[in-house]
């Protein structure tokens, strides 16, 4: 890693507030949301990783602790950004290990724990956790969207089936069909 102060574009004598300000600006600049589906996304991600490391390094050096520059608010801290990247890349074990090292179980922590479950195929587990994150932070759009995606995941499958000719049991025609099938089972013995 290069000089962390140079990476963040601040002087060695900068105050903690100045460093936080610079860090926030840089994160905004290279935020993955801006690069969604963009071929430059990987490069932006590298840059962001560098910035995160630089910030962590300076903060560790100064206070011996890593804290979120966003304070106790709802914005994800740098440690969570890294976990998010692991989850996106499918490195679930690493993500879980990093998550387990964090002591305070904030809404973001529980949300990411739920997202790991989701990626593992543990949908029931994921639904419970993401619901909990939504309860803790009801205004967070991302959590709400993830929850409603999970709640409605099966609906798309069902709609597709109806589009393909599937008929529900209540249908009179289908009852006739089933009578036919029963008879068919007796005569044709599949």
């Amino acid at each position: 890693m290069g000089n962390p102060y140079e990476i963040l574009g601040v002087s060695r004598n900068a105050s903690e507030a100045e460093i936080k300000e610079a860090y926030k600006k840089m994160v905004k600049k290279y935020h993955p949301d801006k690069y969604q589906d963009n071929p430059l996304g990987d490069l932006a991600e590298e840059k962001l990783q560098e910035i995160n490391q630089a910030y962590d390094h300076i903060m560790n050096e100064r206070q011996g602790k890593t804290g979120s520059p966003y304070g106790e608010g709802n914005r994800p801290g740098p440690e969570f950004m890294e976990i998010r990247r692991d989850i996106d890349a499918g490195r679930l074990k690493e993500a879980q290990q990093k998550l387990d090292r964090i002591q305070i179980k904030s809404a973001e922590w529980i949300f990411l724990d739920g997202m790991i479950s989701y990626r593992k195929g543990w949908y029931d587990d994921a639904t419970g956790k993401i619901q909990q994150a939504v309860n803790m932070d009801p205004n967070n759009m991302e959590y709400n969207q993830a929850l409603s995606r999970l709640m409605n995941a099966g609906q798309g499958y069902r709609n597709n089936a109806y589009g393909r000719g599937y008929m529900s049991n209540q249908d009179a025609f289908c009852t006739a069909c089933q009578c036919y099938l029963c008879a068919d089972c007796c005569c044709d013995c599949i």
Partner: protein
Amino acid sequence: MLGYITCEKPEMRMRDFEIYSGYYCGICKSIGHRYGQLPRMTLSYDAAFLAVLLAGLEEEQDAVKREHCIIHHIKNKTIVSNGAVDYAGDVMLILAWHKAMDDMKDEGKFSAKASLLLMKNIYKKIRGRYPHLCKKIEEQLKELTLIEKEKCPNLDMAAESFARIMEEIFNGYREKNERQQMLLRRLGYHMGKWIYLMDAYDDLEKDIEKGSYNPLVYRYAKAEKESPKDFAGRIKEQCERNLLIYCSEMEKTIDLLDIKKNKGIIENIVYMGLLRRTEKVLGKEEAENGESV
């Protein structure tokens, strides 16, 4: 596997149905030829789906003939034979062997003992052919026993072993490219979870009466006073949501798999057969109430 994977017959083309039945009969014949008549009784349509799917990923044409059958002795049946059919037959027997072991441990049933004796040599033979698959299945079944003993309240954790077994089964036929292999594993995993939850919901009332472990009782904290029927009604919606998520994931893998043949059959089963079965199992208590009036 338990016979949950079936086709939606009214929507299946007749020639597809003929081939699908041909796979079923083919597996039966394949087991009969290689291991004798009795193990044929373990067959279900789940195995036919496995064979149809795995053969569907291969270019080679199936060998199809019409043959006489001891069970359906009136007319000749279409018989499909290929490597996937043999594999599906072997997988059925592996699972039947473990089921018989389990039954014997649980209840010491005489019938289980008898079939164990019968199957011991067959299992040995199959284990020699698929050592990796059999080892994985044995490991996961050990896990499953532990989970059941602990009365695990986490549905996903409880279903994990069976899902992993299915993942190995779908993965264990022939080496494919990485992409196909990943999709097959994913399909198997989700099918395993679906079957596990279907079975848990289906057996709910029976398990409560007998006092056997059922993950749903612990996951949704059944109250002492709650009748099995009320409990099943209360958790129905949540079970349905989970089941349909699995179906939706299976649908996605099918859409991405590079299917060379049997496409109509595979799609019919995954797109519609699974949904029909899901609705049937979930609607069970309603249907029974309706009839009893």
